[in-house]
């Protein structure tokens, strides 16, 4: 991520120079009709601009990025060793309990990290930034995608750091398995971030958003079998957990970490993840397009 201090935004398709409008009046020439390819290019460019804005915000707040890692790190360091002692837990790890545990912690990171991004949107609603941006011709979709992509990037960075620590602690897994697991987690984060923005837009104040968030995230986390695989659960709990999408993602990531790509969990997880992405981004897009034509 190339970012300079304060100053020039650079990126693909920078269109300074000729092609703009006359000195007086808005630059009409530069903004072609928003249809077809031109509209798509415009959306892509706007998404990049919005992404950069929030990526910079993230860089200004490095402490916050680090703090986002403390909870999963604590789980890894203070709880992980315990689990590896229990060892040979049914269906876990295949000799290396870290293989079962780390994917769960990654999903937890996605759930909590990306789940809370709605607070940033509420702050922007309050300061008037959202309204200011909506009066510009910026693509409405870019306002969502730019943010969500930043959130996904942040999560991938945090996940990689967490994985490095896990390897030090004793995780042994095939590299491509880890990579596939990471893709699952990234897509999950993207979905959760979109949903978080939808909820933030709907509630609009922290006082309503915060309790709603904790009510939703805790059962989702417990039911997805993050700490121990749901295959260990009694029948009724196992059944309930099958209705929560994250379970499939966790199971798929675990299979990937084992390098077991023939496992049906991988296919199930992939299907659920794709569906989750489609549904959440659609909801987010609709929410961001609403209210003004």
């Amino acid at each position: 991520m190339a970012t300079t201090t304060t100053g020039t935004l650079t990126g693909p398709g920078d269109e300074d120079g000729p092609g703009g409008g006359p000195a007086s009046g808005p630059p009409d020439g530069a903004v072609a009709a928003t249809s077809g390819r031109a509209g798509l290019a415009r959306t892509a460019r706007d998404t990049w601009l919005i992404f950069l804005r929030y990526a910079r915000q993230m860089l200004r707040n490095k402490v916050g990025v680090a703090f986002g890692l403390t909870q999963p790190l604590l789980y890894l360091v203070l709880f992980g060793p315990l689990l590896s002692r229990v060892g040979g837990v049914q269906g876990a790890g295949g000799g290396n309990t870290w293989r079962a545990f780390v994917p769960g912690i990654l999903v937890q990171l996605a759930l909590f990290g990306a789940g809370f991004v709605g607070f940033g949107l509420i702050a922007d609603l309050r300061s008037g930034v959202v309204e200011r941006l909506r009066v510009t011709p910026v693509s409405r979709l870019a306002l969502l995608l730019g943010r969500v992509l930043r959130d996904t990037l942040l999560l991938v960075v945090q996940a990689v750091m967490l994985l490095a620590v896990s390897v030090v602690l004793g995780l042994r897994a095939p590299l491509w398995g880890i990579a596939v697991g990471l893709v699952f987690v990234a897509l999950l984060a993207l979905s959760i971030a979109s949903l978080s923005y939808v909820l933030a837009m709907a509630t609009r104040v922290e006082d309503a958003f915060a309790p709603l968030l904790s009510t939703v995230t805790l059962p989702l986390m417990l039911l997805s079998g993050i700490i121990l695989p749901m295959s260990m659960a009694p029948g009724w709990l196992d059944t309930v957990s099958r209705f929560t999408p994250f379970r499939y993602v966790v199971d798929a990531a675990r299979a990937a970490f084992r390098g077991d790509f023939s496992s049906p969990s991988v296919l199930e997880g992939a299907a659920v993840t794709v569906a989750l992405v489609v549904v959440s981004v659609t909801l987010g897009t609709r929410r961001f397009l609403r209210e003004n034509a």
Partner: protein
Amino acid sequence: MIEARGLARTFTGKRGTVEAVRGVDLSVASGEIVGFLGPNGAGKTTTLRMLTTLLAPTAGTATVAGRDLRSDPAGVRRRIGYVAQGGGTDPSVPAAEELELQARLYRVPGAAERIGELARRLDLDGEGLLARPSSAMSGGQRRRLDIALGLVHRPPLVFLDEPTTGLDPQSRGNLWEHIRRLRDHDGTTVFLTTHYLDEADALCDRILIIDQGRIVAEGSPAELKRRVSGDVVTVELAASGAPLDQVAARARTALADHPAVREAAVLDGSLRLTVEDGERSLMSLLRALDEAGVELAALRMARPTLDDVFLTVTGRSLRDAA
């Protein structure tokens, strides 16, 4: 620059529907500073949000900066600037970054030069000022930054929502200067809302008064005052030989048929006249009195204030209504 017909917005909430704006017709010509005056809750901001594409009208049509509000909101957005009441900057983002993002989103050619130019014009070019986030700026600086953000793409039409609310008197006066310069220097049309009478009076070429979701009066500040109240001219008479009563009676007869005089009353040896367009008719009033041989001791003229106007058209004082 703006043509709106029957623009209306109702909000449906738990406690039934609220008609925030009930059919607003308005026209704004190019190069005008138009003030939208009314108490809080009169529908000013709702109207503004409709005209700036932030809120879809429930009824009515409007053309804003040459584009149809309903069928081409994107076209409207490209041609207008909007500065919200509370501004629109993230308190932690350096001002320069906000301006640059804004310029890129509008695809402003030569963004860096444009930002430099705006900073000079709006007195934001102080040492290191633009490197600061808005939370480290004074109220006046923050307001000027908000305005710079709204002007970065050189819009022919700019909307300012309560631009001087919360500023100290010196910053207010300073901001008025900047707004006037927009009109005089760039020919920008400015549409602003305010609930300050002095601001509307000092700054605006034309005023629209809105109350309870409807426009109840419009005109230049002078026109409005003239149309609604008339000026009050008080003539103190000199008792030169004849008793004061007789002088007063003579004076009143002399002015009874004067076309500018709407009302004439004698009060404690002085004559109180309600006069249309006092400034212009004063000379001919004096001439008529002189011809009738009436001597004057003193002469006073009081112009009505916009508050008088507001009182007349709504039956309430603006201060009470707010």
